């Protein structure tokens, strides 16, 4: 009945060790996990649980000490820095905690930045739809310093979506936002999954944020301690207590 879904991103027995000898830290201790396309996954865990490390390795920003990561059919371990950079450019979108927009570019220029870097022309129809979705119509020619935090982060999401990447990684995207802006942003991520079929993997420590996701993965001491569904913040909190 339930055929296994094809996996867009998968990690097999990933180990990441920092330091050597006495100072050795095993940030990831044999993680195997797969992410099918078109799903919104939240990764949670206490500080030092390895959640950020996992995201960095899945996104090709860091390399595992051992194990394999496949993103959209490509084994990341085989790629050199140049090809890894191209892969990030073409197949991955990022949303960071501290927005990370370029202050010298206006909102529209920031949104199309990954496309400009690739030296391509933006798909105008898609862009119009995107801008409509993030709700920034009249602020497109403003620079980040003239936008609120919530607006800046929505520009960041639009930037991540602009090149229609295979997957978007969001690292504590609501960490610097008030609760109203947080809600709007998470709604936007949710819509991108539901309406555009985007795959989103989000690292967070906010139970409310995690409740927007289809699936919750909880890490502890470099291992996956929970992998399942979670629909309300209360459920999430209970789960965290249980594993904590």
């Amino acid at each position, binding site marked *: 009945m339930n055929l296994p879904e094809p996996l867009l991103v998968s990690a097999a027995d990933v180990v990441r060790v920092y330091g050597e000898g006495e100072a050795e830290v095993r940030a990831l201790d044999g993680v195997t996990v797969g992410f099918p396309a078109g799903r919104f996954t939240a990764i949670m865990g206490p500080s030092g649980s390895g959640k950020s490390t996992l995201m*960095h390795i899945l*996104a090709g*920003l*860091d390399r595992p000490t051992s194990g394999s990561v496949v993103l959209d059919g490509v084994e990341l371990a085989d790629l050199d*820095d*140049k090809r890894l*950079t*191209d*892969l*990030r*450019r*073409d197949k*991955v*979108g*990022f949303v*960071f905690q*501290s927005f*990370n927009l*370029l*202050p*010298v*570019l206006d909102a529209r*220029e920031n949104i199309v*930045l*990954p496309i*400009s*870097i*690739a*030296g391509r022309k933006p798909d105008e129809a898609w862009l119009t739809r995107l801008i409509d979705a993030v709700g920034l119509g009249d602020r497109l020619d403003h620079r980040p310093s003239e936008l609120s935090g919530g607006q800046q982060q929505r520009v960041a999401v639009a*930037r991540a979506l602009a090149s229609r990447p295979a997957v978007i990684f969001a690292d504590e995207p609501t960490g610097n936002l008030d609760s109203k802006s947080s809600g709007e942003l998470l709604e936007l991520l949710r819509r991108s999954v539901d309406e555009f079929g985007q795959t989103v993997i989000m690292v967070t420590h906010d139970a409310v944020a995690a409740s927007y996701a289809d699936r919750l993965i909880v890490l502890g001491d470099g291992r996956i301690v929970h992998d399942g569904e979670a629909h309300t913040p209360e459920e999430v909190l209970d789960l965290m207590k249980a594993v904590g």
Partner: protein
Amino acid sequence: MRKVAMRGLFARKLRLALTVLAVVLGTTLIAGTYVFTDSINNAFDTIFTVSNRGTDAAITPHKTIDTSNNGGTPPTVSARVLEQVRQNPKVADAEGSVFDVATILGKNGKRIGKGGAPNFISSVAEVPRFQGFTVKEGRKPQNADEATIDAATADKEGWKLGDKVCAVATSQRKCYTLVGTTQIAGLSSFGGAAVLDLVLPEAQRMLGKGTGFDEIEVAGKPGVTPQQLKTELQRTLGPTVDVRTGKEQAAKESKDIRDNLGFLKTFLLAFAFIALFVGAFLIFNTFSITVAQRMREFALLRTLGASRRQIWRAVVSEGLLLGFVGGVVGFALGIGTAALLRALFKAFGADLPSKGMVIEGRTVIITVLVGVIVSLVASISPALRAMRVPPVEALREGAVPIQHGHRRRMAIFAGVLLALGIGLMCVGLFGSLSSDSAAISFMGGGAALTFLAVALLSPRLVRPLASVIGRPIERMTGITGQLARENSVRQPGRTAVTAAALMIGVALVTFASIFAAGAKATINNAIDSNLKSAFVVQNTDGFSPFSPQVLRTVDRVDGVSSVSGVRFSEAKVKGTGGNQSVSSIDPRTFLGLYKLDMKEGGDAAVNNLGPAQVLVKKSYADANDTKVGDTLQMTTPIGKHIAQKVTGIVDDKGGLLADLTVTNAIAQTQFGEPKDAFGLVGTDPGANQAAVKQQIKTLLEQRFPEAEVLTNKEFKDNIAGQVNQLLGLIYALLALAIIVSLFGIVNTLVLSISERTRELGMLRAIGTSRKQVKRVIRWEAVITALIGGVLGVIMGVVLAVLFTRPLDDFTLSIPVPSLIIVLVLAGLAGVGAAVLPARRAAKLDVLEALAYE
């Protein structure tokens, strides 16, 4: 508090190193100049002290006026004086000597020594204690057919004992058998000069001294002090000679050469201060940026209870410390710089003597002091800004915004500076200042103020200029160009100061190239419109006078219609201060070969110029209110008093004649100048020019190798070559200022990159390649460099137009291709300056950069 400041300083090694580097670059040429010139002076001191060691008293002809600068022929002491000295009971020993300019011929029959390195003939002393040179190899010459030469020249020319060496001076070419080589005080080189030593009578004959001497060396009897000997001799010999003790004579010879080389120190120091001035921009910028980056830190200190004064003191003491360290390192590198300067001058043909590097206490003190003062001044404004940071800034998110509250006041201040600068330049240009050096100081000071004013105004120019320069780059490169342009205008003040530093170097290069092009054009015009002769004759060294026999002989060549010699001397004129330059001509032939504008007196005034008459240049006549019919009372270099009646006033667009002009006959009898400095040669109508020139050339090569014949075109090329050589030297020295300003670009980029670390991390994360990151940095450097280049070229052109205005008949020509090359080079320099910062930016670890705060 001090501990905190110092810890903050050492926590950021890169910033520390870059700031110190700024001070080092600014001070090293100052130290280098002092070490270099002190070393030369020391070498000459040694040479003269050693050569006068055995002399108790030296007797030289008394010069009524100092003619050390005009290259004329000095008077001599007569043989009778020597007889008189020898009969004096206090004298144990006395001997005469001669030493003068000559031409020593190499194996190819041409003058030896490249550039203007002079050749001399000297007499050899019979009395050992008077002999300055020591024989290194072989022996002293013993008869009129033998000679020794300095070891350095023998080496250079590959001469061995027993070889024939030929020379020419007032007397014709003669060849000698080399019997020895000499050195002085262990120095085999006399500063690139070649010295041929002959027995006294032969040296006198060659140099045309008759039985006279240039100097008589005297040794006193035991018990007679040099001072007593000097007093005794001066009393008995009277005022026609000067008597000095050996030490005084050495000091005088040393001082004469120091005076002559004094310009060298001034010249080099001028470039050192240009580099320092540029360095000050760099120091200021580095301080401003590092302080801006630590604003949060200062605010935190303020929250924790540090007073404003403590913050101020922390920043200023940081400046002092960096200035001190930079000055010390600058001094240490200055020793290497001195060696480079020596190599540079050698490359340009001036092999200055050296006897090891001389490091005087004064050099250390000046260098370190200059470093400290410049850093102190540069740190004042950033310290004020740090002091004023409100404590609450420590708690705010994001970078502390930079205050731009003083824009208007800054503009007014810049305007005042600009007005002041232009005012000073005008005083220098048009004011009647007593001396040229005062005028140059005014113009230099004015130019420096103008540069400062433009630098202060340039933040307003950065945006439009970056736009003009950046748009085409953006069109070419897309997003990387756009980011580069946007980054360059992000902190207009910072970009402006960085670009302004380069602007100064570029402006001076532009100024020098326009000035040189104008000088060449002016000289070419003058030669084309004033020379009616077919050829000119000059000394092969380009400036020394040559025997009058030369032109007399040339006159007899078939096809030569007439020749005219011009001589130069000096005189004191009653009623005017200082020495006046005097030229002399051959009245019969001069106007046939040279065009003069006669303002008064007509051509007859020249053609009939008599022994008691003088021609006056218009500029001199205007300045001294001289009229035709006036009588000028003149004192000549050999002490004769003559009265010359003004019969004509001339305007010489060719610039050949001096202020006052007499006949060659008067120059010989009254001024003691028997030699021609310049010869004009005319040809018969229809004569085959090339054939005539070839005949003259052959004749000169055979009989007068010290002279050469040039067509007007060759003469122009010759002068252009000299101008180009000077220009090359100036470019080489300006290169340091430009290098300093390029380090400014490096500095600013590195500091800006560290500010933008997180942005770069993001760019790399979302898929920007290392190459693209490098490209962004590189284009930003190019834009900054081109802003400096464009401003510099504009400033250079404006200054050149201004400075050449008061010069009579100066042909201003703007060498557009050179200026385009300057701009292209500025852009390329930007690429060079970006190499290191770009590499740093591309190497950033993405994850670390993203986590960077």
